[in-house]
């Protein structure tokens, strides 16, 4: 009888084994807080920059008077070493090893750097700052204009209250923002940029309305109106110089011809190609790739699930039409201009 009971007990214990951690967690909970809901601010493109500014305002407000003016080496109330530059960049070289600065740097007067510096902590510029070539910044917050020289590397984020110019061959990791404009050179690699206007080289303006409306496009047989758009099964090629008066969803590939105007939004499950000077007054969405020619204008957001290539002088949004360009990979040709935001988690590149 005893062996049977023992076997029964052993089996029961084995069966209940998974209940032990469950019972412990039930009676001594260690993980009962609601899941942290992702607040939109974490997706806000200037989030880290704003947080840094608030942090620094609090810290510097608590500094003694002698630390508030002139060149100064010291510590912030939280113990962070900092360097204030009031007159020249010479203070930067003091105690710095081979151009590597490991203090938080506060720039109080207009400053032009020689180049090649490495800033291991944030740079905060109250006055215009012009960086030299080959500099490495952990992060930069500039209240006014910010110039980044050729071959600059930003590791986390950069923000400028004024215009930000980025030299050729630079690599900008993280979030790059400006309250005014970001002007990119050639062969610049980045992930996210947000600014009222972002341009590769010269800023483009939306084209004027055409003097006469082109003739209306006739949808192919089998096209079906669904609510506020027309749906076409298969591939669709819209010829040049016509007017499409509705939003459009295409289950295959879509090509919009030279100078054609679409008055709504377009979506294709396949690739979308917009020929030169085509215009879409709404959004452009594709499950694969988008290619645009020269001088294309898209007024709304642009979304691709694989890749976007904005051709020379392509314009997205407008001064009163903020828009986002979003795809895992993005390429922007010279003159491409986006009024709003560009997001490319796997990387964007100018060419």
């Amino acid at each position, binding site marked *: 009888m005893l062996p049977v009971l023992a076997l029964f007990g052993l089996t029961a214990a084995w069966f209940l084994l998974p209940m032990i951690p469950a019972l412990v967690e039930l009676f001594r909970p260690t993980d009962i807080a609601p899941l942290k*809901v992702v607040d939109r601010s974490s997706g806000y493109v200037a989030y880290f920059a704003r947080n840094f500014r608030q942090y620094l305002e609090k810290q510097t407000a608590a500094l003694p008077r002698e630390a508030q003016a002139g060149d100064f080496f010291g510590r912030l109330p939280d113990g962070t070493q900092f360097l204030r530059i009031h007159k020249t960049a010479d203070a930067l070289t003091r105690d710095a090893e081979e151009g590597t600065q490991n203090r938080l740097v506060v720039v109080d007067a207009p400053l032009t750097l020689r180049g090649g510096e490495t800033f291991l902590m944030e740079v905060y510029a109250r006055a215009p700052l012009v960086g030299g070539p080959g500099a490495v910044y952990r992060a930069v917050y500039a209240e006014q204009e910010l110039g980044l020289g050729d071959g600059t590397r930003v590791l986390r984020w950069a923000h400028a209250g004024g215009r930000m110019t980025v030299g050729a061959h630079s690599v900008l990791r993280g979030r790059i923002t400006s309250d005014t404009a970001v002007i990119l050179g050639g062969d610049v690699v980045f992930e996210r940029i947000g600014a009222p206007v972002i341009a590769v080289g010269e800023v483009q303006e939306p084209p004027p309305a055409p003097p006469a409306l082109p003739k209306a496009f006739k949808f192919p047989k089998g096209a079906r109106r*669904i609510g506020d758009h027309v749906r076409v099964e298969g591939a669709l090629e819209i010829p040049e110089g016509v007017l499409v008066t509705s939003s459009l969803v295409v289950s295959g590939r879509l090509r919009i011809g030279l100078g054609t105007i679409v008055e709504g939004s377009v979506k294709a499950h396949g690739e979308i190609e917009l020929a030169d000077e085509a215009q879409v007054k709404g959004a452009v969405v594709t499950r694969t790739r988008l290619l645009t020619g020269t001088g294309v204008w898209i007024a709304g*957001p642009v979304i691709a699930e694989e890749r976007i290539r904005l051709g020379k002088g392509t314009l997205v949004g407008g001064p009163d039409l903020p828009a*986002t360009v979003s795809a895992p990979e993005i390429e922007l040709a010279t003159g491409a201009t986006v009024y*709003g935001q560009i997001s490319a988690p796997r990387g964007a590149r100018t060419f």
Partner: protein
Amino acid sequence: MRFALLIPLYIIVAVMVVYTIRHYLFTLNRLFGRHRQPYVDIGTAAWPRVAVFVPCHNEEKVVSHMLDALLAGDYPPDRLIIVPINDRSSDGTQDILDDYAGRFPLQVRPFRRDDGRPGKAAALRAATAAADADIHLVFDADYLPGRGLMKQLVAPFFDPEVGAVMGRVVPMNVSKSLLTRLLDLERTGGYQVDQQARMNLGLIPQYGGTVGGVRRAALLDVGGWRDDTLAEDTDITFQLVLAGWEVVYQNRSECYEEVPENWSSRIRQIKRWARGHNQAMLRYWWPLLKRPAHVRRRTVVDGLLLLGVFAVGPLLLLGWMLAITLYYLGIQISAGLLAILIVAMYSTLGNFAAFFEVAAGARLDGSRRRIRLLPFLIVGFLVSLVSVSWATVAQMATFWRRHDQWEKTERHRTASTELPNGNGNGNGNGHKNGNGGA
């Protein structure tokens, strides 16, 4: 006799196996597949006009928190109106809504109903005409949307094919009881794994009736909210898909909700879901099977499985009964078949597939310690199994009866309830009676 019992059993086994494969497919997709969220980075745009509908029936405990949270949102105020729908509340809800309307006349425009068919679906249908905004968002009154949630939910509508958007529901009263902790795990599996996997695979994410929205043009295209259903969310999902619209899920568009804190409330809730879902199943399985030209085959399969999800419980019980009956009658069935049934039973409602989903979801959320409660989920599943089966059988017995009453989940919030940070509390808009104890 033998075949009359065996054939249904074979069918049930086959159905269970299909659902098991579905669970595993979704879980493996979430663990190893591409995470598809094409609209999540749209942060800057010319935002369309939005109307936010909040159906209310005796919601004085919670509605002020909800309105505060919406008013604290970052959606452009000149593009937003909030339409709380007071459907014959008998408590202080109307006073609270009047107060908000007085203080925010441009944004809060209550819609009052004193007659007509009761219920959320009918309330939404009646109020739709009150707002001509391009996008209609819908929240339940106990929800607490975060500051940026409205923009996140509106962003997918820039895609002209999108007819409805669903966000993720996150329980906020997790610590209240074992039930709330189990529901938290279930939600994790349901949203983080099931819904997102459907989004990844291009299937049918379900519009869940709250933390989401519909395009007005799409709503009008399908004839508006149906007021003769208990699950207007499932209903609109299938209407839109059949009409050629896309339903999308945004995993990052998270919103807190209050889940039932006691079993009786939970049982009522799941019975209502089951009845509503079964209504949709009866209504849409055939139109879906006929497959309109724009609907892909895999969408049909997924849609049928989604429609049948609340039929799994009764089927499983039937399978058990058949197996036991065969045993009592001395009819031998192959051991292999029995083994499949057992495995499928466990994998569908028991230890493996659904549990695997929940565990995978918790892992993706980075909340690994709560997975320790996983064995207790069997309690929740058994309660659901019985409740759903009960509701289904009762529905079959009374299918001719019209259902004209508010099916409302009990609210548990009190004056001392601590609300999650940054979600509508502490923004200075608090109603004079908005302490939950009014």
